């Protein structure tokens, strides 16, 4: 049951990431602007990536249960 919820969360995250990383959403960051000395597009990709890792870790790092389905 819980494992199933986890699976759904992960699938949802992957769909969201696919949206954030591809056209048209990514075109929002596609500007000739530097933020803190770093091109906006690079910074955007970096931030989404870091957030994705944190979300993955928080979804998967629940107390270890006996894995089964």
């Amino acid at each position, binding site marked *: 049951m819980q494992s199933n919820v986890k699976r759904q969360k992960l699938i949802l995250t*992957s769909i969201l990431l696919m949206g954030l990383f*591809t*056209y048209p959403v990514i075109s929002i960051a596609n500007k000739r602007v530097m933020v803190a000395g770093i091109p906006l597009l690079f910074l955007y990709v970096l931030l989404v990536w870091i957030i994705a890792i944190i979300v993955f870790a928080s979804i998967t790092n629940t107390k270890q249960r006996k894995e089964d389905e």
Partner: protein
Amino acid sequence: MSNITAILAALLYLAILFGVAYYAEYKLKKGKSIINNGYVYALSLGVYCTAWTYYGSVGQASTRGIEFLAVYIGPTIMAALFWPILRKIVRICKTQRINSIADLISIRYGKNFSLAVVVTVLCILGVIPYIALQLKAISGSMNILTGNTETLPGLSNILGDNTLYIAIALAFFIMLFGTRSIDASEKHEGLVAAIAFESIVKLVAFIAVGLFVTFGLFNGFSDIFSKAADDPTLSKLFQFSDTGSYSTWTGLILLSMLAIIFLPRQFHMGVVENVKEVHIKKAIWVLPLYLLLITFFVFPIAFGGKLLLGHTAINADTYVLALPMQHGAKWLGLITFIGGFSAATSMIIVETIAISTMMSNNIATPLLLASQKFKPKGDGQLTNPILNIRRFSIILIISLAFLYDKLVAQHFSLVSIGMVSFAAVAQFAPAVLGGIYWKQASQKGAMAGISIGFAIWFFTAVIPSLASAGIISMNTVDQGLFGISWLKPLSLFGMQGMDSITHCFFWSMIFNITAFAVVSLNSKKTGQEAYQAEIFVDIFRHSSTPDSNTIWKGTAYLPDLNSLLANFLGAERAEKIIATYARRHNISLETNKADPRLVAFAEKILGGVIGSASARIMVSSVSKEEELTVDEVLNILRESQQVLGANKELRKKSAELQKATAQLTDANKQLQDMDRNKDEFLYTVTHELRTPLTSIRAMAEIVHDNTDMDEDQREQFLSGIIKETERLSHLITQVLNLEKYESGKQLLNMTSVQMNGLINDAVRSIRPLANEKGIQTEIKIPDSMFLVQCDEALIMQVLTNLLSNAVKFAPQNGHVSVTLQSTYEELQVRVHDNGKGIEPGLHELIFDKFFQAKNQTLRKPEGSGLGLAICKKIILLHGGDIWVESEDGNGSTFIFTLPLS
């Protein structure tokens, strides 16, 4: 730096690698597995990052900007799907003893032999150039390190070529750690440990270069980017240039999402070498983190390199190494070289093992078995030939890669070959994903999809690269196949606006998926296929009952089966395996005919050794199998599912029954106890009633019989009769009261009562009795008021009872005291006498009904023996507690408490 130093460093690094692998295997022998760890698993998946990542991504970033990152973002997105997808594949491969992607596909589609061959061939064609690319990276980086600028294409100076010796050492390593056991589905402890170690080495080395460039050659990130922003050619790379690059970007993300699972090396590390499914959970976030870290410094190095070395002839693919070397950091250069070397070797090692397993299982072993006109003779005579085939495959693959590197690869840049091989393995995705989620997927569909995808891949990706390398003429590329203009490899059907890889990926997948789906829906499946489809798609349901629902129909003889297994495993091991299996499943080994389950089991075991396709040929060579129809297969599966369900239901029912029985037994015991108590109570009560009745009767008879009795005497007997009658009615009242409290009929009439007054009243009422015995009474109450919620009459009854007991048991001229104390929660009343006390053993018992009556030798037979029992009931009804503190000879103190709120 001299040539010798470079090659020594590389060989020293390889020696360390051997050490790590040996150490892991040594630890395993001691019972501790290093690779049984989620982080090691995640690091071993880092084999994704090859020399192409290490050197090539900088080159690509410096010419095409952010595009290269797609190859690492795809796997990041896919990591989230590891839990649903990769775990399912792992579970399937574990239960079916599958050890390569060719086996996975061929077993799913009815253990089809030709499918396994096609997949193997596609893997070889797609991946050998990729291995060659790694060798090229090693020789290229060695040239930069040693300052050797002359390149020697071809085989003119083969013995002077460092790459040759590196390749030989690698082949040796792979043979040593990759062909340990005949059973290819066993884990390679040392290999996985070494690959995880290499992942750390390349990461650390790359970050070291990144830090050196960013903070050593420049003043941090913003310095590099602001300088690059001033350069119009570089600042263009900060953005996507046009909508075409969006489609390339998305195409590359999708392509690499598939590659992270279907590349043979990823499949090998992620599925075949997976120790526990839970490790996948770790990899879900550790792998994306690893990819982020290893690509973090690519932009700084790329732009830094362009800014510092852009005017020279140095290839951007080599900036990682060239930057430290050009700026005098020779030691860092050596570390960088080792990092790139580790990236290349890890890829070569794992890819070679994966491909060689496929090659030996699906092509070489069947040929060998066919050519020998195989007759089972037993006793492991085929163990060595099979291991040798695997070793030979390894040498063959490394040699092919070496030749490809020398003869062909020198013409390509690093990137294109890598992407071509990604597109090749993506052709497996529809067959595999369809196979594990879609029962309708059929063998003909898979064959059609993979074949047409393969053909389009070859036409749109391989032909143009061969043409641009000058190996075939450019005519086909420029004018289309046979001069037909809409058959141009780079713009098939006239499609334009995509780069060549996205173009290839797009068309091959469209055709692959369409063919797969359409043919699947329009083809009939065999029983074997239907069975495998069922097992694969519902693996989580079936894997809980392994082997229980085997389908195999036909005749086979046990000795044949035995000697067949013995050929590959040795007689002793074969016998042990069969015996264990038979014991576990209650199969008799007495009969000559083999149980169908045993036949299927033997095939599965053999599959782990020689691949499913060969195993099937082997088993059918010693048995006569009858074709099962689809209906038969589905019936078997359905039945076993039903039996399973019925079993579960039965178990649940019987557990419920057991629980109910236990509850009934308990209730019965309670009833019996209560019955016994009641008998005892009745007995005691009647006994107690008889005593006064007997004396009343005796006295009444005396008065009745002696009519001449004088007045005084008569008076005395009559008052005795009255006294006994009073005692009798008192006893009956008490029994009735007790019954009332016990049955819960007594309702408390709660009021606010001043405890001080109550105690004074009680003591006053008992004083005449005390004075009679010359007993001092004393009241110790603090000055303040004590209000408590209780039933005044009942508490008064308790106090009177305790006080009269105290007076009763205090000696002549003794003393009795009442103390009132309060804490925040409760009020405590202590009634003390200085009588002879109560032994500790009786402290609890005296509150029992008729305790005194039953123990009349201990105390004088005064009172009914119900007083304290009633007191206890009353206090408990109030939510308080009552007990006694006493030492023999020092008097006793009865204490009761009442809660204050």
